[in-house]
């Protein structure tokens, strides 16, 4: 039927188009606490919890448990302020992570699944929420009554800040001790300014600490002269939280250098990337030679390379042990580095440093590798090939092969695991009562968002330990939605590119931000691409007449004739059992994993038996 294109002929409903762009901004109104009241149900049923886990992949992938679809929907509705708040609820540094997050959510995004195109630029939208929130935006905090408990947090890195904020919100009296002059940890001393402007960082850090968190910078905890003893802190405070992260570079293991000496530290033009960056951000002037070699495969390595280019290096090469495929850095980051002129060469491990008579480095000796067995997190082992050594000449060598924790600050007996990290139990506590630890200090070098997530998690655990009961429960909040907010046409919008600083001007200085951020139009367009996976489409089987009108308009293989459903041992749903045999079809059911929330079925259902609900994770105070 050619004439039957578009529109809804079958269904009982009239489409009401939502003119997203013409919505007014509600974020102020939010801050006055007036909300449209809608009926709500809170559920802890494993099937609902499981649904959220299965169907909101971005949130599931996020270590900080960020409610991604909710904040993207707010962007759609032009409520950047609200969007920022939803972000801030999960992680107190949205503006920061909006720039430098490792984006596990985007790898998980349903829009990136086979046949669905490219993932939504979730991170760029997070930044947009931070950048575009109204100038007069007010932060909302729901505070518990003061508990009278005192907590010391050691280290003002992402984990420490996140924990400190949540703890003080929970009514405790928190003090942070930080050895550096500025709070932020790796955020301040590790990440170059062209990726993370310092004013963004400091504003969000200060906001996080505004609930009366005491910040004592330049204070070292340790056994040395004029250093605060951990043991004394344990006496003065009800609880102490260690979030000192991994601030020590892992030394370069060179052949024949097993006498414990670290040759690398003895050669002038060889540096550890971590120190290189830290010193740079402490304000020291750093220089590099014409040809810079970087060994290592993490963000630090890439940062070193890109900083070197800005310091005037002519040829920068990153040497990695495996291959690009397997290094834990976002593809964008790699592409930008290459675009700026960095070369990345794979399958090689440094085995020796070549120096001239004056003791300066002239080249690095590498051995050729081949790929070996798989390691955790999709990484690969590199197996050196005997006798395949070769020499790469260079003027500066920057080593960024990893970081580790520093435990010599502990003056009390704490159980360590075999990597020398402190061990923590289920309740987040070390073997020492009242001494908690979290972040990289526990799991080893990881990402910022993991640190924030852990900090937040541990804060709750400390609260539970201190108060003797759980005061915050994770439940599913279910609200009805009147009609679909999306249109099929949204699915064809291409990913919106992040506006970049032109190549010419990038290298002028070290602080010029390379990514410019979305403007309102770009953000809205990108936000439209989000499937809003937290919207759940359900068929009321009692009213279904099995007419398949919904199936006919379905854009994908998303509505199915079902005879059964698997139940996982945790009580959540598994795969649907489909059938085409009429006398076995028990129900027509929407496979929410295939569903892209286009709303076509909703419009055509003759018996109006399709309902939409908003399903979100909600932390209930109890």
């Amino acid at each position, binding site marked *: *039927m*050619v*004439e*039957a*294109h*578009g*529109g809804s002929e079958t269904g009982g409903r009239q489409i009401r188009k939502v003119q997203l762009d013409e919505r007014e901004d509600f974020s102020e109104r939010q801050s006055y606490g007036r909300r449209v009241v809608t009926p709500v149900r809170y559920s802890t049923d494993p099937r609902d919890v499981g649904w959220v886990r299965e169907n909101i992949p971005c949130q599931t992938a996020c270590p900080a448990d960020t409610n991604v679809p909710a904040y993207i929907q707010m962007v759609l509705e032009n409520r950047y302020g609200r969007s920022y708040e939803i972000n801030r609820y999960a992680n107190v540094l949205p503006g920061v992570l909006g720039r430098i997050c490792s984006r596990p959510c985007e790898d998980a995004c349903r829009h990136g699944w086979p046949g669905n195109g490219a993932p939504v630029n979730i991170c760029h939208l997070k930044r947009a929420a931070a950048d575009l929130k109204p100038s007069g935006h007010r932060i909302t905090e729901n505070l518990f009554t003061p508990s009278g408990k005192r907590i010391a947090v050691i280290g003002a890195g992402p984990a420490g800040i996140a924990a400190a904020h949540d703890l003080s919100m929970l009514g405790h009296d928190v003090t942070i001790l930080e050895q550096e002059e500025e709070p932020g940890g790796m955020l301040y001393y590790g990440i170059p300014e062209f990726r993370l402007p310092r004013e963004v960082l400091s504003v969000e850090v200060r906001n996080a600490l505004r609930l009366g968190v005491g910040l004592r910078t330049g204070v070292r905890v340790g056994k040395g002269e004029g250093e605060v003893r951990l043991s004394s802190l344990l006496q003065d405070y009800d609880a102490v939280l260690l979030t000192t992260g991994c601030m020590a570079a892992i030394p370069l293991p060179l052949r024949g250098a097993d006498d414990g000496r670290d040759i690398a530290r003895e050669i002038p033009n060889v540096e550890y990337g971590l120190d290189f960056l830290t010193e740079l951000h402490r304000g020291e002037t750093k220089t590099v030679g014409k040809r810079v070699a970087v060994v290592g495969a993490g963000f630090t390595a890439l940062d070193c390379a890109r900083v070197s280019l800005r310091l005037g290096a002519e040829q920068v090469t990153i040497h990695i042990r495996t291959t690009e495929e397997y290094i834990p850095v976002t593809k964008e980051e790699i592409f930008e580095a290459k675009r700026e002129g960095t070369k990345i060469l794979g399958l090689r491990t440094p085995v020796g440093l070549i120096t001239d008579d004056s003791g300066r480095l002239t080249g690095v000796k590498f051995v050729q590798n081949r790929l070996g067995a798989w390691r955790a997190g999709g990484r690969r082992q590199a197996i050196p090939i005997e006798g395949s050594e070769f020499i790469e000449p260079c003027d500066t060598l920057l080593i960024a092969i990893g970081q580790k924790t520093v435990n010599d600050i502990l003056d009390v007996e704490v159980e360590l695991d075999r990597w020398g990290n402190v061990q923590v139990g289920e309740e987040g506590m070390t073997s020492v009562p009242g001494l908690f630890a979290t972040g990289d200090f526990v799991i080893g070098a990881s990402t910022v968002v993991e640190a924030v997530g852990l900090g937040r998690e541990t804060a709750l655990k400390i609260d539970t330990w201190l108060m003797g009961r759980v005061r915050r429960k994770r439940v599913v909040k279910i609200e009805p939605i009147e009609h679909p907010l999306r*249109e*099929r*046409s949204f699915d*064809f919008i291409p990913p919106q590119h992040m506006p970049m600083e032109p190549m010419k001007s990038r290298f002028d200085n070290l602080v010029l931000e390379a990514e410019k951020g979305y403007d309102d139009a770009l953000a809205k367009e990108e936000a439209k691409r989000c499937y809003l996976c937290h919207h759940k489409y359900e068929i009321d089987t009692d009213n279904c007449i099995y007419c398949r009108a919904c199936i*006919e*308009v*379905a*854009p*994908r*293989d998303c509505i199915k004739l079902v005879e059964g459903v698997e139940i996982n041992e945790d009580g959540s749903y598994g795969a649907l059992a489909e059938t085409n045999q009429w006398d076995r079809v028990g129900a027509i059911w929407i496979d929410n994993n295939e569903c892209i929330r286009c709303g076509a079925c909703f419009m055509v259902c003759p018996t109006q038996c399709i309902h939409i609900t908003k399903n979100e994770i909600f932390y209930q105070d109890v």
Partner: protein
Amino acid sequence: MSDTDIQIAICGSAGDGTIAAGSILNQAMARAGYKVIAFDVYPAEIRGFGECIACSRITSAQVFSLKGQSDVLVSLNDGHAIAHVPEVRDYGAVIYDDAPISTLKEGQHISAHIKPAQLPYGLPMRELSERATSAAKSRNMVALGYLAGLYGMPRKAFHETITGKFKGKAAAIAEGNVQAFDAGYAEGEAAFRLDFIELGPAPETSSDAVMMNGNTAIVEGCMEAGLETFFGYPITPATTILEMLAARLPKQGGRVLQTEDEIAAIGAAIGAGYTGARAATATSGPGLALMTEMLGLGVMAEVPVVIFVSQRGGPSTGMPTKTEQSDLNLAVFGGSGDAKRIVLAPTNVEGCYRCAGRAFELAEQYQTPVIVLLDLYLSNRLESVSGLGKTRFAPNLSKGLDAWAPNEAYQRFAITDDWVSPRAIPGEPGGIHTVTGLEHNQLGRPKDTPEIHQLMTEKRHQKVAPAIRHADLSTYKRFGDEGEVDVGLIAWGSTFGEALEAMLQARSEGIRCAAMKVVMLSPLPVDAIRSFCADCREVLVPELNYQGQFANLLTGATGCEVHRFNRVTGRPMQVEDILGEIRRLAKVIKTERRFVAA
């Protein structure tokens, strides 16, 4: 540039808009001045399931049938189309959707079946459709647009046709379809062409040539013959006659009524015919079966009425959407008693038009029901027709009251030298009379004496005999080689197109042969058929029924021996099949000759 001869098959599931796409293609190309012969095959379900094929042959010179192999196959539904991939010629194109929405097993996608010599053209039909109209249902327009873009078909003609098609519907609908078409067109234009299919320039067409199918031609004939009343009941494939007349007849003061059934339809038509108005109805085999009782009344009461019958697969409900020529017996003999009637079977669309018009003349002149016998293939087949409106059908041929010597009492069924009685119609002074279904005398009074029944039966048969020489109606015609030939074909109805095509090809292969079309099946032009058979070493009668109803008819009437060639596939006769039969016969003749020579 070479002459155009492109055959395009669009294949999909009912509901994909397959037939709609085909008809737009035909109309648009005709509008652009090409010759088009087209035929659709579709199932009874309205939506969703059965297989549909819209097949169009677009040429610069007139042809008489479809080709065995298509140049392009457009798949709107791989499930159905896969089976038809082998019907595409070498270096022909297969156009399909390369972005289906559900996971397929190996071989479920058409690309797995395209032969090495054929050329794949994939495009994301559904996606383009959704982009253009945010619905998947204009896939057919996208595919059509792609086809048009690929071969540089005149875009404007398509736009006009599409907008025309949706006239009266919401403007958005037409726009949406045009958008979808353009979306496809752009893709097609941009596509990298590898096939060697050429669209030549449009031929010079005589200004009055128009594209139409058999049913439309029937309607044209009715309109021009000044049809006054029409009664009908929907039945595939005759429904469109009723639909078109419902829309058009009122425009010139005629009246159309959709009755509650065929019985009522022909009843009303006979009533109207009795009053002297030009009256008709249209149906298919099953409807005709219902009508035979009323038909008998029409014969008996000598009421002029025209019945258009488009045959479909039978018996019973049979194959409503498949073609067949199996209602000949019913049309010629159907009904109770010796019910002689006139039966015309046009062989092409233009013939439909002429027969429709002449049917009313015959009905009036011989005061009897006239059946015009089409079949689904002819009803739906599109051809370009010229000479419309040139033929002046006689407005009234009935032998009226003025032909009666006034000094005697009027006899409605008086015996005259041409067996046709002067006919008075209600309202005429001095013509008062009664008609009845009972056997009757000259006055029309019931009478069943042996003499009367003998006489009146003879009257009802004799009066129609001269119909075979009716002015401006070729009731039969010979084509091909003159004089003695090896193989002669006699065909009727839609099949004659294929027969002619086959005969022409056979001649080009050096076989001496001729073909004769027989348009009037009752009464039958016996002498002409006899002399034709006399000229032929072998006579071949191809027809779309199992019994060889026409072969039976003419053998019975002429005593000539013929070879029967019968097909009941529900599809039109294949030129290749007939040709094969001709070759076989020719071969036999040759060997006989050699044998004689030796």
